[in-house]
């Protein structure tokens, strides 16, 4: 039996990272270091209004007084924030492209390697893609078609120029500037990200999708996403993330804010495949992200779906504030940690309004020496009569050197609340693999089949084409591992 363990370990060890290439493009990068001057420089480069600069500086001054959170079940050496460059933009894009034709062909080549041929997507898939390359959005497709529907989908820096009243009204209204250490840092130095506005009664005519990618060495990426769904509107948004292979660790501290007004629905899906580091744990992305949705209106709904296979360290809790009566929050998550990856992830559901409901389905897969923690908070305030929560938290272990931990927190201040919690931990046993093999199925295929079966409930929440992609991504992440 020991041989079997060793073999699984051996198999799990190798994991090819298909997106680990660097694009040779000259970029304009601000020297490493963080100060008020750097923030002023970023703001000036982007031609920002005074209020936004003030907002950044306020966040920076708060951040200086804060300390990095220590409570997460992850371990890493302290980050030297002065060694990071806070702004990088490809030189050839200073003026900003008007159309895809103006985009550096090398960039387009990069996206092709990532499997997102923009032109093909434009023509075939009907997916509008806002691509963020390092700090500047280089291509936005389908803008016109969306504009006809009244939908605004553009880089946030553009929104600052074109729709300052909307940005000013909503930016920081869900994640305040001093919310937490990394959110404060993001607020101070964010360079780009997406802005989405769906007007009253509009159902967004297509899936919106953004691929983020960190290219420049030693640059942190601090993107900022703001999605506003007005009364009765609906939108489905997908972000995909990859980063090149490097020996150093890179910091990614994003903030995502969602606002849903009365009867609005936002579905936010993430397929995250940041570079996870090598098998010794060298390199890889530190993914310290604040994602929060505000169900501000009655009967509104916000649904987070995430498939996370990358990053060296993940610290992330997409949350919902269920402020409106009868509002609904959902969190569906698949997280895979392999080799030395660490993840402390989960969600927060804050019930404020009456008859608010939330569902949490978390599936954690640990392989190699991966360490994974689910950390979830369900808080029911005095005002939230008849609140309901269902939490299901399942862990799957592959091999015997990985770990799964669950930290559920509940705070209930209204006696009419009903909370259900289920948790399971299982292991892909050698008996299961043997059983499959005795039926003619290879070990690799068996692992992939079992893992996909385990994740089924979450995959079915993803938009169809991405569910297939997610299934494949998981298979690939484990394939290198099992082949």
């Amino acid at each position, binding site marked *: 039996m020991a041989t079997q363990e060793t073999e699984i370990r051996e198999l799990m060890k190798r994991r090819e990272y298909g997106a680990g290439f660097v694009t040779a493009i000259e970029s304009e990068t601000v020297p490493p270091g963080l100060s008020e001057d750097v923030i002023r420089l970023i703001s000036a480069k982007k031609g920002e209004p005074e209020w936004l600069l003030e907002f950044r500086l306020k966040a920076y001054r708060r951040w200086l007084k804060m300390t990095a959170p220590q409570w997460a079940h992850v371990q890493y050496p302290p980050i030297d924030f002065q060694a990071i460059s806070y702004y990088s933009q490809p030189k050839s894009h200073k003026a900003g492209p008007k159309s895809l034709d103006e985009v550096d062909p090398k960039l387009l080549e990069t996206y092709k390697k990532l499997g997102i041929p923009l032109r093909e997507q434009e023509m075939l898939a009907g997916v509008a893609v806002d691509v963020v390359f390092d700090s500047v959005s280089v291509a936005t497709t389908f803008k016109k078609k969306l504009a006809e529907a009244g939908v605004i989908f553009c880089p946030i820096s553009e929104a600052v120029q074109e729709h300052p009243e909307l940005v000013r009204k909503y930016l920081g209204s869900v994640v305040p500037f001093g919310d937490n250490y990394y959110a404060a840092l993001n607020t101070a130095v964010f360079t780009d990200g997406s802005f989405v506005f769906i007007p009253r009664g509009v159902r967004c005519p297509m899936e919106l999708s953004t691929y983020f990618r960190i290219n420049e060495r030693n640059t942190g990426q601090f993107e900022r996403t703001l999605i506003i769904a007005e009364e009765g509107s609906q939108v489905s948004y997908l972000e995909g993330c990859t980063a090149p292979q490097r020996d150093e660790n890179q910091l990614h501290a994003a903030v995502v804010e969602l606002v849903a007004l009365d009867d609005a629905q936002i579905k936010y899906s993430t397929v995250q495949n940041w570079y996870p580091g090598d098998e010794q744990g060298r390199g890889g992305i530190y993914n310290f992200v604040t994602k929060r949705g505000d169900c501000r209106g009655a009967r509104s709904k916000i649904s987070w779906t995430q498939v996370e296979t990358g990053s060296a360290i993940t610290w992330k809790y997409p949350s919902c504030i269920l402020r409106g009566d009868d509002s609904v929050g959902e969190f569906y998550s698949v997280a895979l940690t392999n080799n030395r990856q660490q993840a402390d992830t989960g969600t927060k559901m804050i019930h404020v309004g009456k008859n608010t409901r939330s569902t949490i389905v978390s599936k954690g897969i640990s392989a190699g020496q991966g360490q994974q923690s689910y950390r979830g908070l369900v808080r029911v305030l005095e005002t939230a009569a008849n609140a309901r929560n269902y939490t299901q938290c399942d862990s799957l272990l592959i091999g015997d050197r990985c770990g799964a931990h669950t930290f559920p927190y509940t705070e209930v201040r209204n006696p009419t609340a009903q909370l259900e919690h289920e948790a399971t931990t299982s292991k892909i046993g050698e008996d299961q693999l043997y059983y499959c*093999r*005795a039926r*003619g*199925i*290879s070990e690799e295929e068996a692992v992939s089949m079992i893992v*996909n*079966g385990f994740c089924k409930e979450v995959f079915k929440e993803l938009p169809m084409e991405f569910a297939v992609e997610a299934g494949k991504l998981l298979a690939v992440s484990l394939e290198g591992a099992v082949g």
Partner: protein
Amino acid sequence: MLEIKNLHARVEGKDILKGLDFSVGAGQVHAIMGPNGSGKSTLAHVLAGREGYEVTEGSVRFDGQDLLALPPEERACLGVFLGFQYPVEIPGVSNLTLLKAALNARRKRNGQPEIDPADFLAWVRDRAKLVKIDPKMLSRGVNEGFSGGEKKRNEILQMLVLEPRLMILDETDSGLDIDALKIVSDGINAMRSPQRATLLVTHYQRLLDYVQPDRVHVLARGHIVRSGGPELARELEARGYGWLEAA
């Protein structure tokens, strides 16, 4: 079809099989009987290729091919089927998913295209009727929440769907009530053909009332202590194993 020569096997450093010799011809059914701990299940797993079951001496040939050199999945694709004594649960993976993957693995190996989904479904449903398995159960997780009897019937269903050439059934009769035993036996008999061979590993005579063996081998402490016709099974039923173990 199956030739076993001087087979020695060790599990966790302990010698379990100590020189087995017998052959099963095409069209034949052989029963392996014996007391607990005699090595019956070890033999079944050695034939299927379980990791950790180390063959220290001897050979096993299947259609002239060296079976022991192949990993379990290749043996299965050649037509070796092991019906498990303790079928394994695989939550979240439906019976249909497993069966389809298993069928397509065989087809791939034989250079055939994947099976048409509609043909597949029709085939599985047809086979399920033979073992009285409700089509609804096919969409449930593999053996997930199945009763002991359902698990055994599910093993027989898999066998009927995959149509192996060598069927090794490890105590498939244990824990079955009389109705389930009848269903399982019908399934096994439905598979009997001049092209197939069957190895029934069992503790009791009662399965053999329904599935007539051609030969019976009694295993004790890693050796075949006696071989004979069907009458040997009845003798064992009457006298127990003690007289043979002492021999």
